[in-house]
C-alpha cells in the first residue's frame, strides 16, 4: 500500500493492505469522538468495499490497484473506493437473504455495506463506490 498523497489518496494492491487503512480510519474516528458502534460500522463497511474492489473489481489482478480516500469530520465519515475493473451493476446482485441464496458462499458484502452505513452510492460504471456514515445521535 502506498502512503497517502497530498490529497489523502492511498492505493492498495491486495487484501493484506486493508487493515492499515481500517486502523487509520478507526484512529481518526476515535480522535473525533465517534462511538465504538460507529467505528465498527465504518470499518466493516469500508473493509467490504475494499475487498470487493480487490477481489471482484480487479479480479485479484496484482497489476491493478484500488484507490481509496476518506474524510472524517464532526458529522460524518465519507470514503471513496475505486477499482480498475470494468464495473458492475449493483442492482443485479442477488439478495443473499432470499431462500434460494442463503447457502451461497458469497454475495453478502454489498448487503453488509448497506446495512451498516448511512448510504452507499456506486458510480455509473460500477467500479467506484462512495460510502457515508453519519455520526450516531447519543
Amino acid at each position, binding site marked *: 500500500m502506498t502512503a497517502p498523497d497530498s490529497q489523502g489518496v492511498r492505493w492498495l494492491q491486495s*487484501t*493484506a493492505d*486493508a*487493515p492499515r487503512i*481500517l*486502523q487509520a480510519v*478507526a484512529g481518526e474516528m476515535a480522535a473525533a469522538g465517534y462511538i465504538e458502534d460507529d467505528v*465498527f460500522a465504518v*470499518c*466493516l463497511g469500508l*473493509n*467490504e468495499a475494499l*475487498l470487493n474492489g480487490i477481489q471482484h473489481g480487479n479480479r485479484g489482478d496484482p497489476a491493478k490497484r484500488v484507490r481509496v480516500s476518506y474524510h472524517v469530520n464532526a458529522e460524518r465519515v465519507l470514503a471513496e473506493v475505486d477499482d480498475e475493473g470494468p464495473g458492475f451493476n449493483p442492482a443485479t446482485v442477488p439478495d*443473499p*437473504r432470499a431462500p434460494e441464496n*442463503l*447457502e*451461497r*458462499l*458469497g*454475495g*453478502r*458484502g454489498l*448487503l*453488509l455495506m448497506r*446495512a451498516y452505513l448511512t448510504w452507499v452510492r456506486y458510480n455509473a460504471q460500477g467500479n467506484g463506490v462512495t460510502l457515508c456514515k453519519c455520526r450516531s445521535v447519543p
Partner: protein
Amino acid sequence: MLHRNAPLLQVAQAGEVTLVTITVAELGETNVHAVAAELSRLVGGRTRPRLRLDLGQVRYLTSTALGQLVALHKRVRATGGELVLANVTDPVYEIIRLTCLHEVFDISRPGSATPLAS
C-alpha cells in the same frame, strides 16, 4: 485490525464432540483461510462429525468468513454431522442476523442452553 501470526484456534475433544475455540477477535481475509483449512482437516474423512465452534472471542467477521462458515456447515451436514456456533457475541450475531444466516446455522448465544453437549 487484523493480526497475523496469532494463534487462530484451540481444539479439544469432549466425548464425540470436537470443541474448537476461535482465538482471534477478527475473522477476515488475513486469517480465515487458515482457520477454514484447519476446520476442514478436523472434519475431513469423518462420518457424522460433531463440531462445536466457540466464537466467544470473535467480535467481527467479514463476508468471506461468513462464506467459509456456510461451506463448513454444508460439508458437516452432508456427512450427517452437526455444527453449532457457540457463544456468538452480539456484534457477530448481528452480522449473522442481517444476512439471515441465523436461519441456516445452529447458534448458541452466551447464557443460552447449550446444544451439542457431550
